[in-house]
């Protein structure tokens, strides 16, 4: 009744590339194992005990042969290495202008938050034909966000942002799974991606009881936790001014610099003493345990909404 599928649907820009690589490796596997199987079967029959095959001058070593079967596999290996690594680089770096969606994994569900304020659980609505980047973190253990039809997967770690991106090429519904074992109901921690035409996607964004946009919610939190007491405009407070800080390069106390990407902002909220901006004291209270990952994401979006240098999107969390 369910049929016997042998090959997964390919519904992202990256999927055909991965399938081509898979096919290439398949061909290599079939050629080599075919060669070995044939050689063994042929020799095993031809030189069976009692056969009259010619056994003159049996050899038990040959440097040219050894070199051949060292160098040929080495060459083929490196061919596949470069193929796979080039493609990986493409998969790793999201193109500019991607739709950013926040994903939080927790035992045992996926919570998704759109910039516009829409929230979903175990469902992910995305537009067709536009790059979408998932900015993911976990509330407890390690999870992994796996969309087979898009051929992408990335572990979702507590205490850190990881990202993955895709651009869907076919509208429809696809599975996503948690693929890193995370406890009792690991196998139920799955859901569906709904790929929609741009217009339908926008209708969905507007229609499904959206809350305030994330940045606005972040601003409320910013007020509620009194962040503005220290983070004032024009560097007059005890903390640095946050306007324009997103994506800028900040100098750190104790030497070195850091790019104020999402990961830096997240860390600086939760564990402020880790990377203190030069000229400031580590006086900010620790918010680890005080804020949910959703709230941290809202604050990060708020800080980003305050402006900052535009940079080309990179693979790491921006």
């Amino acid at each position, binding site marked *: 009744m369910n049929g016997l599928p042998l090959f997964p649907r390919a519904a992202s820009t990256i999927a055909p590339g991965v399938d081509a690589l898979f096919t290439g490796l398949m061909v290599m596997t079939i050629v080599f194992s075919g060669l070995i199987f044939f050689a063994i079967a042929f020799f095993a029959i031809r030189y069976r005990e009692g056969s009259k095959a010619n056994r003159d001058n049996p050899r038990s070593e040959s440097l040219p042969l050894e070199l051949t079967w060292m160098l040929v596999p080495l060459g083929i290996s490196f061919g596949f290495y470069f193929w796979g690594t080039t493609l990986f680089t493409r998969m790793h770096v999201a193109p500019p202008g991607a739709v950013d969606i926040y994903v939080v994994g927790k035992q045992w569900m996926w919570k998704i938050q759109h910039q516009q304020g829409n929230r979903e659980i175990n469902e992910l609505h995305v537009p067709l034909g536009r790059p979408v980047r998932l900015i993911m973190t976990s509330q407890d253990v390690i999870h992994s966000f796996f969309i087979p039809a898009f051929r992408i997967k990335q572990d979702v770690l507590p205490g850190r942002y990881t990202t993955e991106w895709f651009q869907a090429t076919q509208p429809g519904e696809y599975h996503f799974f948690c693929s890193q074992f995370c406890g009792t109901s690991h196998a139920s921690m799955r859901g569906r991606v709904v790929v929609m035409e741009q217009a339908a996607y926008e209708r969905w964004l507007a229609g499904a009881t959206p809350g305030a946009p994330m940045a606005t919610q972040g601003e409320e939190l910013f007020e509620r936790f009194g962040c503005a007491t220290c983070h004032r405009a024009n560097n007059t407070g005890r903390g640095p001014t946050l306007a324009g800080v997103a994506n800028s390069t900040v100098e750190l106390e*104790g030497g070195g610099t850091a790019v104020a990407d999402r990961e830096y902002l997240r860390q600086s909220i939760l*564990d402020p*003493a*880790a990377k203190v901006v030069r000229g400031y004291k*580590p006086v900010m209270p620790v918010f680890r345990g005080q804020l949910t990952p959703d709230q941290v994401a809202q604050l990060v979006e708020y800080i980003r909404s305050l402006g900052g240098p535009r940079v080309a999107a990179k693979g790491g969390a921006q």
Partner: protein
Amino acid sequence: MSENRALVAHQFDTAAQQRGAATLGMWIFLATEVLFFGGMLMAYTVYRVTEGEAFAHASRAQNILLGGINTAVLLTSSLTMALAVHAAQGGRRTRSVMMLASTMALGALFLGVKGVEYAEKFAEHLVPGVDFHWAGPDAGGAQIYFILYFLLTGFHALHLAIGIGVIAVLTARAARGRYSAAYSTPVEVAGLYWHFVDIVWIFLYPLIYLIRVYR
């Protein structure tokens, strides 16, 4: 094992083969031990890189003087151990017993000083998982520093205690005249172990105590 039994076990042909096997066996065991401590040292390396500032602050809580004295004590014990091996190889019973006993005493002294340091840590609430309060800003990194401190020095102390136990047995046997110019392999092999434990400490001292003592 009776006294008059041949000193070469049945599986060996010669005493030299037996001695070579025992020595090689101990060296291989020490390679294993390097990687046992290596797991903790790798954790140390990673966090020293990612939490460098915290480690520098946390290490200020250490007593450099006690650590230094302990290093000197262990170095001396290595000297007495080397002399004990030499004496045993020469068949000088009294001297080998004396040197083994000194080695044990120095080892015990080290553990005593270590105990004092541990007691200080408890008094200063610097024992993660049991009683840990860190006033400074980077409590997370400091906590990891102290976990690794207790793990590394704890396993080192455990190795030292085992070494003392082994040497105690050897001392008793040496006193009964079991070792001679012809057969002193157990003392030699135990010596290798003891020196290894010393070497571990040679690395631990700068890594734990001397991260940033200037300023």
